[in-house]
């Protein structure tokens, strides 16, 4: 079950019109594609996606791109929007989202439930985690990744004993428990859980009938550590990338950095592994194209990812990611940018360190990313100076 209901407020304005899992990534992907691809590549083919806020864009993407399983074989990817079947409120936390969908668990009644977040980018073989869960005879297994101690305030921090049994869990602690034998390292929860169904239901109900924040990290896991068999699974044992790559991309800066990793010569996130393909939806577009090669007018793209349907017509693109159907007109200069689908950059425009959301039209001669004070009057500018131009803007 994939939780895809997060607002992703720190990614605003990219999440102005869509939930975080539906935000574009790496040119042609949406963030949720990574989790769903992990499922398919792990041979998990009965998948529910729990949505809530601004889910239209996500629904469309799933419908168009993920209609790939065989229902006669009992396989499915099904979206469950918030139905208010139990409570008249929207989900109050991640645990509440599951309690409210208790009928779905009932209907399906599997032995194990793999709970995932549609918010993260990583490549992981969930089968290895499930095997570990069974081997340990665990009630709950939580996937854990090593992070540096300074990052503890961003994550749920897991404390384990030598057997990887979880003996403590703290949400975003100031002073975290470190990994045994590594005083600078912590184990962070990846928001990936394997639960035995009956215990999951019991703990969800207990949580639903108590005053809590109804959150897996804050409420369910700490309560289970005391009474149940709870283990941590070392991400390194299931990491398909082999380099410990896992990103929350929760902020614009993190999103920008994770995208920019992809244009490096050897990115940490390898999208070329044919054993672990990342699936997505792509509308039928012609191949990318560059035109004009005259003395003063050259269409070029260097160190960049250029998706189908793009035309670089006499402009230059460096260290950038272009989603499908982006057009760069003559003499425009694009550097360190992420341009989402359908963006049109007019002649002589100069843009750097900027994310431009879908279908925005940048007029001739406009400069963005060169005078941040000026930019901040119109756009979101992050602390590290990344400018975000919202979807559909006509300047």
């Amino acid at each position: 079950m994939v939780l895809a209901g997060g607002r992703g407020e720190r990614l605003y304005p990219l999440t102005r019109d869509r939930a975080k899992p539906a935000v574009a990534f790496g040119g042609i992907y949406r963030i949720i594609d990574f989790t769903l691809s992990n499922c398919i590549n792990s041979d998990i083919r009965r998948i529910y996606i729990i949505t809530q806020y601004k889910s239209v864009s996500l629904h469309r993407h799933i419908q168009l791109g993920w209609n790939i399983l065989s229902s006669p074989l009992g396989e499915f990817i099904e979206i469950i929007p918030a139905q208010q079947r139990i409570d008249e409120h929207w989900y109050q936390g991640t645990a509440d989202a599951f309690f409210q969908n208790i009928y779905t668990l009932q209907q399906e009644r599997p032995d194990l439930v793999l709970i995932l977040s549609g918010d993260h980018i990583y490549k992981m073989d969930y089968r290895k985690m499930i095997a570990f869960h069974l081997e340990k005879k665990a009630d709950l297994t939580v996937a854990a990744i090593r992070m540096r101690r300074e990052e503890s305030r961003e994550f749920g921090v897991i404390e384990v004993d030598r057997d990887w049994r979880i003996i403590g869990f703290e949400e975003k602690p100031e002073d975290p428990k470190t990994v045994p034998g590594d005083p600078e390292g912590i184990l962070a929860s990846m928001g990936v859980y394997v639960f035995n169904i009956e215990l999951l239901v019991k703990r969800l109900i207990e949580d639903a009938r108590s005053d809590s924040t109804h959150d897996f990290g804050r409420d369910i896991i700490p309560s289970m550590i005391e009474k149940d068999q709870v283990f941590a699974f070392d991400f390194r044992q299931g990491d398909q990338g082999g380099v410990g790559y896992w990103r929350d991309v929760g902020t614009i800066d993190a999103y920008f950095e994770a995208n920019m990793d992809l244009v490096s010569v050897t990115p940490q996130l390898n999208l070329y592994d044919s054993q672990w393909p990342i699936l997505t939806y792509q509308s039928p577009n012609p191949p990318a194209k560059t035109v004009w090669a005259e003395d003063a007018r050259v269409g070029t793209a260097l160190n960049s990812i250029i998706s189908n349907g793009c035309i670089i017509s006499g402009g230059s693109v460096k260290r950038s990611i272009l989603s499908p159907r982006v057009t760069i007109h003559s003499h425009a200069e694009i550097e360190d940018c992420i341009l989402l689908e359908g963006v049109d950059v007019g002649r002589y425009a100069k843009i750097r360190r900027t994310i431009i959301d879908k279908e925005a039209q940048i007029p001739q001669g406009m400069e963005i990313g060169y005078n941040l004070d000026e930019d901040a009057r119109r756009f979101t500018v992050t602390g590290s100076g990344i400018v975000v131009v919202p979807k559909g803007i006509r300047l």
Partner: protein
Amino acid sequence: MKKKILVVDDEEGLRLLYEEVLKEEGYEVLTARNGREAIQQLEAGKPDLIILDIVMPVMDGMEALGRIVGKDRKIPIILNTSYGGYQQDFMSWAADAYLTKSADFSELKNKVRELLRQR
């Protein structure tokens, strides 16, 4: 102050019977004929405990159970049914007790007492 119990059952005869038995035990009794009325009574009558039948018209007990918990997380609920099979339903686990209807009311009376004491 007398504790207030909401009895939800679609059979009028049973409602009257439970009402009599519980009043003898010293409780004030509210009644509802189905899940929808139970939710109305939950808000209007502020009961301390609910005895809830499962198979009812309009809104059955299992759906009402979820909705009641959605409105009042902590109110004790006893599922009281003629059938045992509903214990397979995950939602039934949200009730504090699952009793099978019987002509002997001692189990029900004990459960009510126990749950009200814990409250």
